């Protein structure tokens, strides 16, 4: 009797909370589960068809796969980055300032971060800073070709193969070969380029390489007045398939190799002249979009992991670390054998929180992935959102799936919380 009497006030105090949880958590979950067994309009029952649909639709399977990648990679990397920074930040002066800077991305919403990184990852090196760096480094080692994308004019006895351009017939000493090229942007020609001269006879093998394009009245294969010769084109002379001589064209596009005699030569402009410039990587294309987005996620969340881990590491008794040091342990050993084991609870907490958080990643994908890569980049939450406007049944099934996937992490956290209360 006494028990009941005492539990009445408790029930009254609990009522608002129960009502709130019921209306805002339990009822929606129940309704979602109910809908997940119904059709697109939410009226006709369809049994488990929505769930079958979820596992058989290629697009959703792709989303499931991406979610798996996210869960396996993102929380671990974020935690590792946080741990690393937390440990290193202890060593520097003004550690607090460093922490604040690293924590700052947390203050930015994922959507804003996504929009920023959409620019950072832009494919064009003119706009995207990542590709600008990649291309800069690449071009420092492999200089770009002088005439990317240029091609031989058709019907002038030249054949293309393997990116190179060469004469279709053999030439003999004393000839001057005409090598007309097309597809050259006038503004991008080297400043040293001078008008190509009429082919002049001479000893050995000579030739003219020029831009054979005049807007009006240009004759194909003929050096019209004003058409520029192409300097610094790499020329190879072959005989029976073997290179016998090499040279580069002069400022007016001419070259001459007087030492060559006889006949049976083939003149070739090497592929190195025409290689397309290295344009960096398509970060937001189907192949790299998920890793690129995980990069953004790490940038945003590493600060969170760092702060929690810093707090955890502050709780490690100094004596323990000193004892280890006296025993001759190095920094790395201390980190692995002392710090990390002692901070295990904090690290596990960070990992789990991030896992649940990663499961519902959505805004980042919506903002960062271009429309054309939304399929390859998709995740469950995004598919749920997309489905919800046309097919409430399927969207609900996806929602239930997300809930089920998130439950282990949530339950573990609850369990830990209870244990620490005791």
């Amino acid at each position: 009797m006494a028990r009941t009497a005492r539990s009445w006030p408790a029930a009254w105090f609990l009522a608002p909370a129960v009502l709130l949880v019921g209306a805002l958590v339990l009822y929606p979950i129940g309704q979602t589960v109910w809908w997940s067994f119904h059709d697109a309009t939410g009226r006709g029952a369809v049994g488990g068809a929505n769930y079958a649909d979820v596992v058989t639709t290629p697009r959703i399977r792709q989303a499931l796969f991406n979610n798996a990648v996210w869960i396996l990679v993102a929380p671990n990397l974020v935690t590792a980055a946080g741990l690393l920074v937390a440990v290193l930040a202890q060593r520097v002066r003004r550690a607090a300032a460093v922490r604040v800077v690293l924590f700052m991305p947390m203050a930015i919403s994922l959507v804003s971060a996504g929009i920023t990184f959409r620019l950072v990852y832009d494919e064009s090196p003119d706009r995207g800073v990542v590709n600008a760096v990649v291309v800069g480094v690449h071009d420092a080692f492999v200089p770009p070709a002088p005439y990317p994308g240029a091609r031989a004019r058709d019907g002038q006895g030249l054949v293309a193969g393997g990116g190179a351009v060469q004469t279709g017939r053999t030439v003999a000493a004393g000839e001057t070969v005409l090598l007309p090229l097309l597809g050259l942007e006038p503004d991008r020609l080297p400043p040293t380029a001078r008008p190509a001269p009429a082919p002049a006879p001479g000893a050995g093998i000579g030739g003219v390489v020029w831009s054979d394009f005049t807007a009006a009245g240009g004759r194909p294969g003929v050096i019209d007045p004003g058409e520029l010769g192409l300097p610094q084109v790499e020329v190879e002379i072959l005989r029976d398939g073997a290179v016998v001589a090499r040279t580069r064209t002069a400022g007016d596009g001419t070259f001459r190799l007087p030492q060559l005699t006889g006949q049976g030569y083939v003149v070739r402009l090497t592929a190195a002249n025409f290689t397309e410039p290295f344009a960096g990587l398509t970060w937001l294309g189907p192949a790299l979009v998920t890793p690129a987005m995980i990069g953004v996620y790490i940038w945003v969340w590493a600060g969170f992991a760092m702060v929690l881990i810093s707090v955890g590491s502050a709780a490690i008794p100094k004596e323990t670390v000193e004892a280890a040091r006296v025993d001759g342990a190095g920094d790395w050993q201390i980190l692995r054998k002392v710090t990390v084991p002692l901070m295990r609870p904090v690290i596990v907490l960070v990992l789990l929180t991030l896992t649940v958080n990663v499961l519902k990643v959505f805004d980042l994908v919506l903002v960062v992935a271009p429309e054309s890569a939304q399929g390859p980049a998709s995740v469950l939450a995004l598919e749920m959102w997309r489905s919800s406007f046309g097919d409430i049944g399927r969207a609900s099934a996806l929602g239930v799936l997300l809930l089920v996937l998130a439950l282990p992490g949530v339950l573990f956290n609850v369990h830990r919380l209870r244990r620490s209360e005791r």
Partner: protein
Amino acid sequence: MRAARAVAAGLCAALLLAGCDAAEGPAKPFAGQSLDVAGTWTGAEQANFERVLRAFGDRTGARVRYTSGGGDLGVLVSGQVAAGVPFDVAMIPQPGVIARYAASGAAKPITGSAAEAVRTHFSPQWQRFGSVGDRLYGVYFKAANKSVIWYRGDAFTAAGVTPPATLDDLTTVSQTLVDAGTTAMAVPGADGWPLTDWFENLFLQLAGADAYDRLAARQLPWTDPAVVDTLRAMGRYWAAPRFLQGGPAGALQTTFTRSVADVFGQRPRAGMLYEGDFVTTEIARLGRYRIGDGARYFAWPSVDGTGGAIVAGGDAAVAFTDRPVTMALMAYLASPEAAAIMARRGGFLSVNLGLDAAVYPDATTRALAESLQRATTVRFDLSDMTPAGFGGGNGASMWRLLQEFLAAPGTDPATVAARLETAAAIAYGGA
């Protein structure tokens, strides 16, 4: 003079419900009533449209509030409809969506003076676009001409070419541009809808208006040889070396605004850009090329150079309530006067027959508007007439399949057509 009378007529139409008696002076029949209007327009367009609505409010006393749904207008409108508090009027750009609301009874047919205003000021063609069955639901307040290709005058001069009239010429011009060192065309493949516009224009030219109508009405399967031929022509153009800025892979990373910058930006690369009249706003914003001077357009080329067939788009005002004040607003939106307020500020085409073309701010806009009125054949954007899951929204199957085709333009067009047919079967089956 004619214009003035038309304006007066429009005013009358708007005020008919309250009685249009000049002697009575400015009556305010709807004082104290309020209206909610939704549309896709944001930024400058929103400001201009709000000006139009304010003029209605000044005249009738009604308070009109505009809400912008941006690209998610469909979500906004369907949400409000489902919640039982629909907007009074929504400016909907897709006939497919209008048909859906008409079928469910959420949209209200236009009646009375509003219907009369539409009949007076719009050609039968545009009335049909706004009708479902034989009932009128939509007033095409804004129209778009989607059959123009923009080009950079300096690139054409440097290559010594003139605007092409036939599809073969288009290929020749593109090749000549490439020979001169300029990429031929910028294609915003990162967005899906420009690719559907490519398909529609090419299909209208190659297969003709009848086939277009039948495809839109789902009487022609997507596996039809005419569709396959169109896809083949499209794939061939996309796959040609240096025809697309950045190649097909680069095009897939190019958004709409980027594509405009690729042609008309500070560092122009490509010579041509296929997109509708609405590109002008973006070109003006970039500021390097002037519309009509450095940035010009030609009509989408045809098979034999005859021209005159246009793919059009537009935003239609659709009523979701049938209060008198709603219908008065519909009548007002059908009036040349309302159109003139927005047309005067640029970036806007109207198909209102009563509108005096002199109000357009520049010759290019005027010419674009007149081409819409003069066209012998006008067809509405096909993808907008299909169910939203197929042709009308992010992630829609037609958008996605065409993007996949752009990613691999060498794909057998018959395979692409078969995929489109499968997707259409699902989308129409579920609708």
